[in-house]
């Protein structure tokens, strides 16, 4: 039967399992929007195309399925760039569909023409320019396949207006076979044996658990592996939830704002087992002094990550879950109680510095707010964070038990990510309790999506950690720029009235005593509540490894109890 390219587009999306699309219409995508009405698709009308991409991303991270965003040509497409780059850096499978001017007009600087395949070349896993209806189905099919297979990532499909309008015979293409694309790798037997040897020989091993655990669904086998080999597990930001925070072998987060004992353990380790992580500079600090005594085993799906930042002794390339299942029988039960006791000992010093332990000064601290939200939600919410101090406090004080329960922009550090990504997460998992933890700065970057929440009746809760500053930048200015607060103080709108203007509920919290009741009221309220937590303005995130410094050279939280001068 003959169908238009627009019809084929939706037919293909539905066949690929898409049930919802986050988008914004315009001239070049109008034929597709017109055809949409005849398909079983929930369309969420966003307020900015950046929001659409973050929503698709949040949807993908919450569900593990491909998220779909749609926009028109020109400005619609360029507004997607930040969201695409965000998804690329964090290996999130999204498919972005953009309208393009008619194929005859390409290259003529026609109204709303931009070379979006050119612009997104380095920030997509792959992209397509489709100029004929005959190519629509294959492009969509391949886009989904490429987005979700191997190391996932964003794929953009740019469809000219005439390709949407004209008709052709519809035929659903066979499973894509892309000669030049080999997402599946498998190490050789000697490589497994060599890895097992290193594991048996190690006295002070540490597992570095990254996003790959979540992406490959390796939580269970990572736990079994850690238990059998008796190896403590340090988490990257995006790995959080990949192993339950309450698991006795889970040390907590590593890196720039990681726990002091975790970074120290890494520096003292004689073997690092990197599971689906990429030795980002935020977790290694100075590469020259990074884990100097450690052998390294890197299990990773992307061959290009092996030996990129850190030279490794064994690189096992392939899907993490499969590789660990294969490796497990090579590994005998081990006992490393001594090493694990040593790390527990390191923890002691941090416990006394912990802001939760400090005497109540009457001030409201972000860490307290997040701790109380964690308690109030039984640690079971999906938390979507923005970028800045609150993001790090969330990582430190909200203890995630399940994979896909923390959604945050790690690699690109995109402010404005949280609110739209949370909408995507809620649409993907309507039964989950979703909390946004966002700074007063980042919230204002994408707060227009409150209108999307209102229009689509989305039920989530927003905790604005309002410190009156671009807090993380202020912290750098405090530490490294003599407290010269250039362009970081914020004069904010009244967030509660703002929420009300969007038809949502607003609340304000100024003291610790109000936190739990307000959070509980928000949980019980049917509909989105925006809570303005007015916290201590000049608080800082500790510990901190200054950018490029040695991982063990942490700035620690000053405390009344601990003499801090020595390790600053």
């Amino acid at each position, binding site marked *: 039967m003959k169908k238009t390219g627009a019809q084929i587009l939706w037919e293909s999306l539905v066949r690929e399992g898409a049930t919802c699309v986050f988008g914004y219409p315009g001239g070049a995508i109008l034929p597709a929007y017109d055809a949409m009405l005849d398909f079983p698709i929930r369309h969420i009308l966003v307020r900015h195309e950046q929001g659409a991409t973050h929503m698709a991303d949040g949807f993908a991270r919450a569900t593990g399925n491909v998220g779909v965003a749609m926009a028109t040509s020109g400005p619609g497409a360029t507004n997607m760039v930040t969201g695409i780059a965000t998804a690329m850096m964090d290996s999130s499978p999204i498919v972005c569909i953009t309208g393009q001017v008619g194929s005859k007009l390409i290259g003529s600087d026609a109204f709303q023409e931009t070379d979006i395949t050119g612009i997104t070349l380095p920030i997509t896993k792959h992209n397509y320019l489709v100029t004929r209806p005959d190519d629509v189905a*294959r492009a969509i099919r391949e886009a989904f396949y490429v987005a979700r297979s191997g190391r996932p990532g964003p794929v953009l499909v740019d469809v000219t207006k005439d390709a949407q309008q004209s008709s052709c015979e519809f035929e659903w*293409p*066979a499973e894509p*076979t*892309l*000669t030049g694309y080999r997402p599946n790798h498998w190490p050789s037997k000697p490589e497994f044996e060599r890895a097992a040897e290193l594991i048996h020989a190690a006295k002070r091993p540490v597992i570095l658990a990254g996003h790959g655990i979540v992406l490959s669904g390796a939580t269970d086998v990572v736990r079994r592996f850690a238990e059998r080999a008796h190896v403590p597990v340090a988490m990257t930001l995006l790995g959080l939830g990949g192993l339950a925070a309450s698991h006795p072998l889970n040390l907590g987060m590593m890196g720039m704002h990681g726990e002091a004992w975790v970074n120290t353990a890494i520096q003292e380790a004689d073997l690092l087992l990197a599971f689906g992580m990429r030795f980002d500079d935020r977790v290694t600090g100075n590469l020259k002094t990074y884990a100097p005594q450690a052998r390294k085993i890197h299990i990773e799906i992307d061959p290009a990550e092996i*030996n990129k930042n850190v030279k490794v002794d064994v690189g096992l390339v392939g899907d993490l879950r499969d590789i660990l299942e294969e490796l497990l029988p090579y590994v005998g039960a081990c006992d490393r109680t001594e090493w694990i006791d040593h790390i527990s000992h390191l923890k002691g010093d941090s416990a006394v510095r912990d802001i939760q332990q400090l005497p109540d000064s009457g001030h409201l601290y972000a860490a307290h707010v997040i701790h109380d939200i964690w308690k109030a939600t039984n640690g079971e919410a999906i938390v979507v964070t923005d970028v800045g101090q609150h993001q790090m406090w969330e990582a430190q004080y909200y203890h995630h038990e399940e994979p896909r329960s923390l959604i945050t922009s790690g690699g690109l550090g995109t402010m404005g990510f949280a609110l739209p990504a949370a909408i995507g997460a809620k649409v993907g998992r309507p039964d989950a309790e979703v909390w946004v933890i966002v700074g007063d700065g980042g919230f204002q970057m994408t707060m227009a999506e409150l209108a999307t929440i209102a229009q689509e009746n989305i039920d989530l809760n927003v905790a604005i950690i309002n410190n009156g500053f671009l807090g993380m930048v202020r912290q750098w200015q405090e530490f490294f720029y003599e407290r010269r607060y250039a362009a970081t103080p914020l004069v904010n709108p009244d967030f509660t009235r703002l929420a009300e203007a969007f038809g949502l509920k607003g609340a304000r919290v100024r003291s610790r005593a109000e936190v739990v009741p307000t959070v509980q009221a928000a949980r019980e309220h049917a509909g989105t509540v925006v809570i303005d937590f007015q916290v201590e303005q000049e608080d800082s995130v500790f510990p901190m490894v200054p950018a490029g410094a040695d991982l063990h050279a942490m700035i620690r939280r000053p405390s009344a109890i601990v003499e801090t001068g020595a390790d600053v």
Partner: protein
Amino acid sequence: MNTFVVLVENLPGVLTRVASLFRRRGFNIESLTVGHTQTPGVSRMTIAVDTDELGARRVEANLYKLINVLRVDNVTSAPTVLRDLALIKVTATPETRAHVMQLVEVYRARVVDVSPSSLVVEITGTEEKIDSLIEVLRPYGVLEMARTGTIAMVRGGTTSTEGISTSNGATHTEHPTDDVSVSYSV
């Protein structure tokens, strides 16, 4: 220096994807040539990059991440035939013409055009051989020069193209491609 033979799908934008990858990852292309292969729809690039062994492995792994890249061979340490082609327009007056012709002879080059005041010399060979001819012609006056950049092929019976075809139903093939037969050194 590392030399790669890269087989790619002959589709619009593929050269850009490859070139963009080198820029994005901070590698400098010394020479890049593109042309057809014996397999329809498959183009062959020879890319010379100034990098060490570790860098070369990163280049290879990253090239494989491009979906239109079918195969990558680092031929640097394989016994390889490397060839460059150059056209050199050199001043040749009645007094100097004989000398120039003699030099052309020594280098097994060919004269492919003659005018009262100049000759066009065609030479194929290694980069070094061509550089050397240019050096000896320079005193006579090199007016213009065009070079292809290096192409490479591993000696012996093995091939880089065995079993390579394009993805089934490669799209866009009826459109004029912007990339084919582009050949330049940078």
